[in-house]
């Protein structure tokens, strides 16, 4: 059964040339949002969105600890990210690096992500601030998301078309 707790779409803004800020409210207290964000079995269930299945979610949740996520996208190719935890305040804040394991030999740049969990009236506002060092990296980061979005739109369109046939 689907939970009817969606609080609308994620808000994405670009505060500076090197940043992306993602904000979303959830109908749950922040310790649970934090749990869903930091527990491998739970991360595996949501992180890939509709883009594929997650095969790896490694989380060594301590300062200096590593994380790595791998998903298999439609079509069978792997998309992987990894990084290191820099700061951890349980239920409040996580600062971590993020590297997209894109094309070997091509530096995609390392981003610094600051994730914050703020609770009010039993609801939690989650913010993810992605700080790149170069505008080009920030831009290609957004482009990759957009291409995935377009791909999904095409897949959906195909399904609809097939159902009409």
């Amino acid at each position, binding site marked *: 059964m689907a939970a009817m707790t969606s609080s609308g779409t994620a808000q994405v803004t670009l505060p500076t040339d090197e940043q992306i800020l993602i904000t979303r409210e*959830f*109908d749950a207290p922040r310790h649970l949002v934090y749990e*869903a964000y930091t527990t491998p079995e739970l991360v595996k269930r*949501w992180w890939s969105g509709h883009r594929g299945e997650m095969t790896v979610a490694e989380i060594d949740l301590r300062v200096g600890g590593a994380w790595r996520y791998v998903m298999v996208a439609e079509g069978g190719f792997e998309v992987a990210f990894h990084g290191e935890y820099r700061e951890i305040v349980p239920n409040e804040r996580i600062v971590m690096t993020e590297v997209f394991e894109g094309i070997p030999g091509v530096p995609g740049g390392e981003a610094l992500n600051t994730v914050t969990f703020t609770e009010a009236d039993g609801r939690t506002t*989650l913010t993810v601030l992605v700080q790149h060092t170069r505008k080009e990296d920030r831009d290609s980061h957004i*482009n990759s*998301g957009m291409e995935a979005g*377009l791909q*999904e739109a095409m897949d959906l369109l195909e399904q609809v078309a097939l159902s009409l046939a």
Partner: protein
Amino acid sequence: MARAATTTDAFNAVAEPRRREILDVLAGGERPVNDLVGLLGLAQPQVSKHLRVLREVGAVDVREEGRQRLYRLNGQALKPIHDWVRGYERSWSERFDRLDVVLEEIKQKEQGDGGDDK
């Protein structure tokens, strides 16, 4: 997404921090150049130069009123940027929609722990 390399597209026009400041000010309403000079603390030639770039991509419009030239924001010209970010936003929205489902489940589990767990 393919982007032109010149300043003739909206992306490059807003890549300059000062030009974004000008757009922020104009988002609050129409302004003459002198206001922008005062608010941004820039020399008039610099402000004029930025306004020229913004006008070239259609991000601002200008009209004459008496001896003044009034500049205003034209949001439509910035739509490509808006659209560009929307695709990225969508993938996060889908991700978070799934997180909603996970949260609902662990929320119920937590409530259940205190009482009669199924």
